[in-house]
Each structure stands twice: as structure tokens, then as C-alpha cells.
């Protein structure tokens, strides 16, 4: 069995826990619980006939007072960056988070989720912002509430992870 450690990183309130909930348990709640430390969940996904277990480390959201726990990022095989389309600052923080994660886990595969696309009337991203994100590659527009884009995002990361890595 192939297992991969995947870390969810992002500013607090962007919907990391909700994405995992939607993906693993197919459910959504409007109530907001701030994650303390880390929550771990698991999902088996089949990529081209190979089962791969994603061990999802749902890290506590970053806030101005506290940096994301870099120890939790150690050894991650993949990273999911999560931004909130209704809060522009959460997206601009992603560059900094990328730097932190790369320092802790190395240049590992990643995808970026811009979450809460169901709240289109509150959408705050400019087309320029969006273009900058697209350049990063692996960009997904998701809604943890409706489930849109969630499955595809995780599956894409799983595909990245199953590609043989160059040398140790």
C-alpha cells in the first residue's frame, strides 16, 4: 500500500477542515471551528488502478500572531494550499506559505485551492490576482459547501504523488 502525507496549509478560516470533511466524509457544516494544532484524516484514492492512501494533515490556520507549524510540514509528500476567494489577503499570503512549506518539506508536489466559489457575490479576487495564481500551476476553484472541484483537486494531487520521484 502506498501512503502519502499531505498537508493542508492556509490562513485561518479559508476552509481547510471543510475541504477535508467534504472530501473524506462528504459533509459540510456552516459552523466554524478553528483547528487547534493539527487534525489527521485519511482517504484512499485510486489512481490509474493503484490505491494510494492520502494521510491528510489538516494544519491549524495561520494567523498574524502564529506561524503555521513547520514541524507538521516535515516529511510531507504533497501540500494543498488553500485560499479564500472572498478574502483577498488569504490569497496573497499563499506566496509566503509556499516559502515556509518548501523550507520545511522541500520542493514537493502541490495544488492550490481557491475556496468558497459558491459565494460569488462576495468574490474579492481581481483578474490579475487570478492570473498570478494560474501561473503557479495546479490551481483549482473549489467549494467545500457544494463539493465542486474538491474531488478533482485531491485526485490531481494524488496523480502528482504517484509519479516516480527523481533520486532520493
Amino acid at each position, binding site marked *: 500500500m*502506498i*501512503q502519502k*502525507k499531505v498537508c493542508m496549509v492556509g490562513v485561518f478560516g479559508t476552509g481547510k477542515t471543510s475541504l477535508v470533511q467534504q472530501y473524506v466524509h462528504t459533509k459540510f457544516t456552516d459552523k466554524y471551528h478553528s483547528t487547534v494544532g493539527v487534525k489527521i484524516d485519511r482517504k484512499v484514492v485510486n489512481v490509474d488502478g493503484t490505491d494510494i492512501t492520502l494521510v491528510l494533515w489538516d494544519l491549524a490556520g495561520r494567523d498574524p500572531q502564529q506561524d503555521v507549524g513547520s514541524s507538521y510540514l516535515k516529511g510531507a509528500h504533497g*501540500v494543498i494550499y488553500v485560499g479564500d476567494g472572498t478574502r483577498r489577503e488569504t490569497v496573497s499570503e499563499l506566496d509566503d506559505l509556499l516559502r515556509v512549506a518548501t523550507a520545511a518539506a522541500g520542493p514537493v508536489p502541490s495544488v492550490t485551492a481557491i475556496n468558497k466559489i459558491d459565494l460569488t457575490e462576495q468574490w474579492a479576487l481581481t483578474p490579475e490576482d487570478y492570473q498570478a495564481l494560474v501561473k503557479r500551476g495546479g490551481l483549482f476553484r473549489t467549494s467545500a459547501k457544494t463539493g465542486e472541484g474538491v474531488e478533482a483537486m485531491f485526485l490531481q494531487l494524488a496523480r502528482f504523488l504517484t509519479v516516480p*520521484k527523481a533520486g532520493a
Partner: protein
Amino acid sequence: MADVTAASRASDVPRGTGAEATLTPPSVPLVDGAPVPLAPSAAAGSATPAADPRTVELAELRRLLLGAEQARLDEHDRRIRDNEMSPEHLASRLPEAIVLRAGQDKQLARALAPTVEAAISESVRRKPGEFADAIFPVLGPAIRKAIAETMAELVGSINRAMQHSFSARGLSWRIESWRTGVPYAQVVIKHALVYRVEQVFLVHRETGLLLAQAHPPHLEVPDADLVSGMLTAIRDFVGDSFAGEKEVGGLRTFSVGELTVMVEQGPRALLAAVVRGQAPESYVRRLQETIEGVHAQFASVLADFDGDTAQFGPVQPLLEDCLVTVLATDAPAGTKVNTTPYLIALGAVVVLTLAWSTWQTMRWSRVIGALRATPGIVVMESQRGWRTHTVRGLRDPDAIPPNALFASAGYDSVRVEQQWEPYLSLEPSLVLKRVQRRLGAPQPGTPTYSLRGDTVVVGGAIDAAWLARVARRTGWPAGVATADVRSAEPIVPASLAAVADSMTSVRVLFAAGSSELDGAARSAIRSAARQARQVAVALAADGVVATVTLAGRADVTGTEATNAALSRERADRVRGALDAALRDGAAKGPVVRFDPRGLGTAEPIAAGDSVARARLNRSVSFGIRLVIDALSGARPQ
């Protein structure tokens, strides 16, 4: 990030293919590993006789025209010959070929396996005896080992079961099991558990991914993947929070309720054991040794780990070795079993047994003592057994039956085995018993017997004829030489009692102051004489002498002296008339003695009024006194 991975894929694939390609051998024909010469015909040609130049030329021409084709023909020819390898050739090369191929891969073993299995099966079927002989040296030790291990396990479990089944604790556990519905075995474990390792994880240190895990069968454990991840997260958190920059060993132990998680870490992986109860220090060492062993054995796999846990299959036995369950009852020392209740019970049993045994012994010796005191019984040997008892000795047939004694002491006579030799006892009571049985019962009379030396003394008022026979008796039972009947009072035998009674009721009456016999008096005397004769004759045959007593009386008139003389005179007158009547009509009368007495007014005959009394007392009345002839010395013939 994705770009980096994609690039690495592109570089990987061709390199792998290249490596495979170089391993494939080029398709050059080989014979025994050596290249085939391309022009064998040259050698063949030189071998042919060179005498005929035309032949040589023809060969040369052929070589020029058909050189390449000829070589290929020869090559095919040789291949055909080589394929038809002779058995001899194969035999010489077979062992080397097998060794060579076995060294390369497992194809040979796979190919041979079905054949070997079939061959063994056939061999066993045809000659089971030889096969058994062949594998016997292996089979014996293997079976012994298996049996020994099974027995050890069985004894262990029996010991535990016994220890728990027969204690108050075990009983309370049974009740708990019944009350809660939890199986008894689990209740025992819950209480007796010192510690049990419920889960062992091997976790990749950097990623927190679970490499392998083990847990006891039938024990439900949480999702190991998540536990492994959380464990790592907790370690990371603790490390971040307390150890600061420099990691100094990280989290080693933490407890959750009854569970303790013990963590031993190596450079690339860590071993976590979930322990219920208190594990000793020695268990920590075992975990250390295990994680060291894992690192030594899987160094490269751990270093190159990229999420594929399949490579860690062989680590499973190492983890299973760490699953330990230690019960309090397993400990040979240290855990003290409370023996007080057992000792009290044992003491009670011992005391009761002793008391019972003592009481039994006393009861037995009491009954044996009673037997010994019994006249006519001599106990020579007695033995008290667990259920049956034995007594041996001598017993006089007249002694009281021993069974009565045993019964009165509470023994079932069936359980007492008795062996009595008959003998004659000279105990006086038994001697007298024998005498009494020998003499029979007199009629009338109730004799009393006693023993004075070897003489039986007979007393009481007894039939005179019977007494006379006893006095004359010579054949006595053992212990008796003679009988003394002098203290006995002979009385008239039953057969003569009526006659004697009628004689003693006769009264010869007199007128006042007179001793003359009138008609009525003489008639009464004749009647008494007849009766006296009858008694005397009958008794004389048995040697008993009858004495007729004649009691003369007077009424109260007159002086005492006159009355005494008068009463004596009356008795003498009646004696004379009686003697004459007895002699009358008989040449020689029976031996009848007379004993006349004058009573005067003493011993008066009672009557209603004074006139009748005076008339009745002016009289002579008769009595009979018997004497045993043997004692008087005058034995009649």
C-alpha cells in the same frame, strides 16, 4: 512543485529502460558458450585427401561459389546434431547445469516442484516404510518439541484456571462476568493484568506514515493510520513546545487513562507501543532492541522510503514479538497469594480428622474393653480398620454373644469380622449356667445356685424328689465336683401336692379337757393315714424320707401347764392311732416318721368367734416334713 515531479518522471523512465536493455544478451549463436567458427568448411576441406587435384579444384570451386551458403549449411547441420544431445553427454553436464541455473533464478525449483511432489507422493504410496525410516530422525524431535510446547501451554493454562477457579477472588470474578455479560476470560485479564501491549506501531519518523503495526488477535484497535499520524503530530507539537530548537529525544512516554504509549525512536523510524497497565523497564529495552533491529535490517528501505509500505512486510514478526501480555498469576514470585483461608480450612480438616479418629479409637477400645470384661470371652487380637474391623479370640459357648455388645456400641456387626475359637471357661457364672442347663428346672421350686470351690450350693424351696436326684448326682460339668443341697428346703412334688394338701387339712377334734378319740376322730385319722402312706411310698422311691408332724393344741381354758400336757397327750394319742392305721393291712409299712408336739395354746388356729375358736383349737392337725435321704444317711433300697 508539480513541474519538478514531472521532470523527474521524464528522466526516470528512459534510464530504467536503458538498464534493462543492457542486460539482455545479444542474439549471437552460442554452443557451450563459445562462438561458432564462421568457416568450418576450410578445416573440413583440408582434412580430405589431396591426391586428386580435380577433387581439390572442385572443392575450391565449390568454396568460391557457395562459400557463405556452405558455412550456413554446415552450421545448421551442427545445430541439428547438437540438439540431439546424447544421454551420456547430458549426464556428464547435468549437475553443473542444475547448479548454474539454480544460482541464476528460481525457475528450476518452480519447474521441478510438481515433479518432486509427485515423486514423493508416489514413493510414500509405494514404500511407506522406507519413507518413514528416512524421515524418522527429523520427525521424532519435531513431534517431541511440539508435544512439549503444547503440554507446557496446557499446564500453564490449567494452573491459571485452577488458581482462579478455586479462590474467593475467582468466584467474585465469575459473578462479575455473569452480571456484566463480559466473558470470564476477559474479566480475569482485566483484574489479573500486570500489563498488556495492545498495539505496536512502526512509524516513519519524518512523514509520520505507518510502516507496519501489530496487535493481538481478537483485540479491537483504532485506525492505525490515524493514530500513527496523530502520534507524530503530538511528538512534533511537544518537540516544538518544550524542546525548543534542538530536538533532544522527543516524546518518550505519555498516558491516556489506563493506557500508556511508549515511544522508542531511531534515526528514521520510531516504535510506539500502546500498553495497558504498567510495563517494566525491561520492556523498554526490548523496544529499543527492536527499533535497532529494524534500522539494521531495513536501513536502505527506510532511507529511500517514499510511501510504499509493502517493503516492510518482513518487519511484522519483529513487531509481534513486542506484543506481550503479563498476568499477575504468571509471575513466579513477588505476587503473594493470601493463603490464610486455605490454612484455616486445612487446620479445621486436620483437627476434625484427628477428633474423629480419636473418638473412633476410644469407641473401639471401649467395646474391646467390654468384650475383655465379658465372662467367657478372651480377646487375643483386635484391629480397627478404616471401614471394617477385626477381632480374634476365644469364646465360651455360654458367653453372651459379642454381636450384642458391638450393636450396643454402635457398630454394624457386618463391619466387624470376628473369629472366635470355642473353649470352656471356669468363670463361676458360666459354670453355674452350665449346671443350671444340665439340671433342668424342678417342679415346683426356683433353685438358687452358687459355687463354693467345686461345690454347687443349691438353695430355695424345691421339689424334694428333684433335690434328692441332685444330691445323688455324680456326672457334673467341668468345674463342679459335687452339689450341696442342705440349705435348700425340700417340698412336696407337684404330683403329690393334692394328696398332701388334703392330709394337712384334716383336723382331729377333741372334747374339752379330753384326749379321747371318738368315732369322727378315728375316721379322720384313717383318712390321713391313707394319704400319708401314698406320699411316703411315692417319695421313698426317690430317697426322700417323709416325716408326719402332729401339732396338738388346747383351748385357752385351764392353766398353761395343763394345756401343754393335754395338747401333748392328744398328739401322742393320734400318733398311736395313725401308726396303727398305717401298719394295718401291710406286712411292712412305709418308713414314715412321726413328730408329735404339744403346742398348748401357742400358734392358735384363728376363727370367727371364741366358741368356734375353742373347738378348733381342741385338736391335732397334720403336716409333712421331708428330708433328703442321702443327707440323713439312711438310704432306702
